[in-house]
């Protein structure tokens, strides 16, 4: 059984928009489909990690990367809707500018029967200089494999 790509994107969107922690961080799904997801998150004073600079805490950026990576996996044509993070590494290139929205783009670039490999990048308004990059491995439930999501 295969799911139509548009249905898959719709299911993934509903699932992601229902995640409590992503809602608490006010994440917004910008784009999804074919193993690629783009999700953004507004700056908020509740997310600040640096008492003097107003810079968002790395942990909030990790949460954005993790959500975006999971969404990319769920939108892959050969994966079912469910996934969980196995590991995630984030490299912090620079502090995100205070007050600016952060946008992450994740791509599921390889899928085996059990594992999805993902890379992701995050930017603030300056699209030439990434704020952070990430690589991760996620669990996979294959479409048509008869498993549960």
């Amino acid at each position: 059984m295969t799911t139509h790509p548009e249905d898959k994107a719709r299911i993934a969107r509903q699932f992601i928009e229902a995640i409590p922690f992503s809602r608490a961080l006010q994440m917004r799904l910008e784009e999804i489909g074919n193993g690629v997801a783009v999700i953004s998150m507004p700056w908020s004073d509740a997310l600040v990690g640096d008492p003097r600079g107003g810079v968002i805490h790395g942990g909030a950026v990790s949460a954005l990367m993790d959500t975006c990576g999971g969404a990319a996996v769920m939108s892959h044509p050969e994966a079912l809707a469910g996934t969980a993070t196995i590991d995630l590494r984030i490299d912090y290139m620079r502090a995100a500018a205070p007050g600016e929205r952060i946008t992450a783009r994740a791509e599921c670039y390889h899928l085996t029967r059990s594992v999805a490999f993902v890379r992701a990048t995050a930017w603030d308004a300056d699209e030439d200089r990434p704020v952070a990059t990430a690589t991760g491995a996620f669990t996979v439930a294959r479409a048509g494999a008869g498993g549960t999501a």
Partner: protein
Amino acid sequence: MTRRPPEPVAVIKQRRDRTLAALVGAVPYIGFLGVSFDRRGDELTAVLNYDDKLIGNPLLPALHGGAIASFLEVTAIMELSFNMLWDDVEEGRIDPDRLTPETLPRLPKTIDFTVDYLRSGLPRDAYARARVNRQGRRYASVHVEAWQDQRQRLFAQATGHFLMPSRDG
């Protein structure tokens, strides 16, 4: 030669608790996550106090991987920061009552952070402790372990590298 009488225990505790409170109070994201810290001497145990907003998979339900990553990173940075202030506070060079977000030393900056998700996080409190495996003047390497019901049954662990603030200002 007469020995100085030992400091009253309440004075020692107050000094250390105020230092910790000043650090925790300076970081809004710690409050957003609902993380608090238990202290025994210089040993810190971070507590992620359960809240429904921390859920990532409502069907299971399980804690969000991003909430777990945030919890571990907060724990690592607090361990490094508390260690960094310890000597100055204990030897009287820094008065914890005068520590405000404006006067605190700069906090360590994360260079990279890798989280292993070993089991799904259950919808209840979680605990974490960080160990500084290497601390130089500029770089530090920290490992963090997190558990819920059983200390020996970790549900997540992480390793991170941090850039330490320069000591000259």
